[in-house]
């Protein structure tokens, strides 16, 4: 059975709840809190828009339920501890194929056998979770450097705007860093691939906005100085390389081409 959810992490938590609830209902005699690994073996979770129906697989949509998501979050926090829970969230944000189901198995194992089990990386779902959370972490750290703000003038006020495209959904992971660092101006970091954005307003902090899009080209909103500063930066970028040591291989190894699209200095 594949449980489908809509929306983000809380929708996913609703499915986790549903999975455990169904397993208990199907076998009420089993002692609560044991053997989840086996009882959940046939259940999978997938976000609805990513689900590709497979032959013979049954699926059902789990409607959004805030109270259940809250309970699940509290329960998992208790079972995994703060760090374990954070690692699970990071893994979730990787959006790697199959990670939602791997997380469900990971939870089941941690609840059955204790958190010590999570370090056993020869177990496939543990490895998947570990690997996925590591990837999100690495990509989030990369974007702390790769975000490039453009200074826009929107009805007389300066707003800093940065488009990005990332493999993992990094916005939640970089929000705090940018809110700390750039706290004296309004700014937006726009995940153009997901139509989501971090929106920071001086005084009211940072919000994650979904369904964010720009209807006009940003170039039209550039502040008077923006083009000049970009030109300075490109020039600096070109001049700082040591010509005798130019190496495309080393460059693309450290900064893969997929990240170049919105980099001022590479365009």
């Amino acid at each position, binding site marked *: 059975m594949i449980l489908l959810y809509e929306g983000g992490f809380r929708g996913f938590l609703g499915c986790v709840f549903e999975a455990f609830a169904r397993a208990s209902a199907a076998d009420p005699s089993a002692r609560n809190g044991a053997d989840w690994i086996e009882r959940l073996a046939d259940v999978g979770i997938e976000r609805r828009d990513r689900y590709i129906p497979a032959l013979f697989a049954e699926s059902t949509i789990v409607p959004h339920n805030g109270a259940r998501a809250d309970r699940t979050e509290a329960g998992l926090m208790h079972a*995994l*501890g703060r*760090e*374990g829970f954070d*690692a699970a969230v990071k893994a979730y944000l990787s959006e790697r194929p199959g990670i939602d189901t791997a997380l469900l198995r990971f939870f089941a194992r941690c609840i059955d056998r204790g*958190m010590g089990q*999570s*370090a056993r*990386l*020869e177990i496939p779902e543990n*490895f998947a979770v*570990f*690997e996925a*959370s*590591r990837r999100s*972490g690495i990509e989030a*750290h990369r974007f*702390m*450097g*790769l*975000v*490039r*703000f*453009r*200074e826009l003038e929107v009805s007389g006020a300066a707003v*800093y705007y*940065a488009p990005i495209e990332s493999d993992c959904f990094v916005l939640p992971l970089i929000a705090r*860093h940018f809110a*700390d*660092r*750039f*706290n*004296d*101006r309004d700014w937006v970091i726009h995940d153009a691939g997901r139509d989501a954005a971090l929106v920071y307003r001086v005084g009211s902090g940072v919000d994650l906005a979904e369904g964010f899009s720009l209807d006009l080209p940003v170039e039209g909103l550039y502040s008077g*100085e923006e083009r000049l*500063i970009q030109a*300075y*930066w490109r*020039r*600096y*970028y*070109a*001049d*700082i*390389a*040591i*010509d*005798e*040591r*130019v*190496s*495309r291989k*080393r*460059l693309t*190894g*450290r*900064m893969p081409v997929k990240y170049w699209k919105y*980099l*001022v*200095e590479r365009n």
Partner: protein
Amino acid sequence: MDLAGKLSILADAAKYDVSCSSSGSDRASAPGSLGSGSVGGICHSWADDGRCISLLKLLLTNSCIYDCAYCRNRRSNDIPRTSFTPDEVVDLTMQFYRRNYIEGLFLSSGIVRDPDHTMGLMLAVVERLRVRERFNGYIHMKAIPGADPATIRRAGLLVDRMSVNVELPTEASLKLLAPDKSREAIFSPMALIGNAKAEFLEDGKRLRSVPSFVPAGQSTQLVVGATPESDRTVLGLASALYRKFELKRVYYSAYVPINVDSRLPVCAPPERRENRLYQADWLLRFYGFGVDELFEGGDGNLVDSLDPKAVWAIRHPEFFPVEVNGADYGVLLRVPGIGVKSARRIVAARKSGRLGPEDLSRLGVVMKRARSFILCSGRAPVSLLSDGRESRIVRGKAGLGQLLLPL
């Protein structure tokens, strides 16, 4: 000259300084002021040569009253000269930082008029950034040998890192290639920075709200390959510097031929030499190796084709195999394929049971390299490579400790 022209010349002139790190400072952000530090450092871009760009690296001016043979800015070169005004640097830094192009500023300079005057100009940049602009990002500043100690101390209170470049490993080489500099003049500001840092740390223990003095410490750079010194001489100096001045880092910069000069070699040293020096430097700082050990039986230079730790292991068959279930931490560190992290994990993990080859892989040991140097409970580990499991486990080693082990 317009700002773009200046930027070209003064960035170009600064690019041979290899230090780029923005790490080591956790300068906290403050509401209403721009910026914060990041302990681990952040790379913002990578240049065409593959080097990380973290700081805006600039010279305040490329005019210089000195005549160091290896330097493009030397007095005797006929090149266009220009300088930034302090405000131009402040402005570029702020504009770039706001757009998240950079982690902060790395400011160096040719010597104009005299060292103290030069340092004063640099200090003006840093003061305006910190005080007027309330800039909280990372600043690395060169201290100019011969500047007034008071100026250096003032700067130390504002920047995250200061460095004085030793450049050449011996007094004789300095005399030959940088006749205006002396060891004495280079070491005295290093000592000053080291002592001031210690003083402030000491005060910080007793008093509250003592400002921090170069919180990310001091570093230096040694040019290798411009003069005939051996790796042994270079590393001997580096290890003395670490000890004496509590340097955070010594950077090794492979000499790049820029000037035609009969005192200089025509070719750059192989890039590999720089790598091997960094590896050896690491062994000195974190693995308990002494300089002499690295060169036993050799000719005073590191072996080109093998990393220095493997070389030592091969020269010391009597030391191996090492029993991982019993050997001390320091002994484990000598095994190729075992790093600081994995050695620590081994010591912790074996308290709760004997370790076998698979446990070692999981703890981050690179079995491919370690296998022939260790025993697990008296037995040599068997190769696991055939079933492909090892490579998978090894891939996962990197962040295991941070992410999942503490759970």
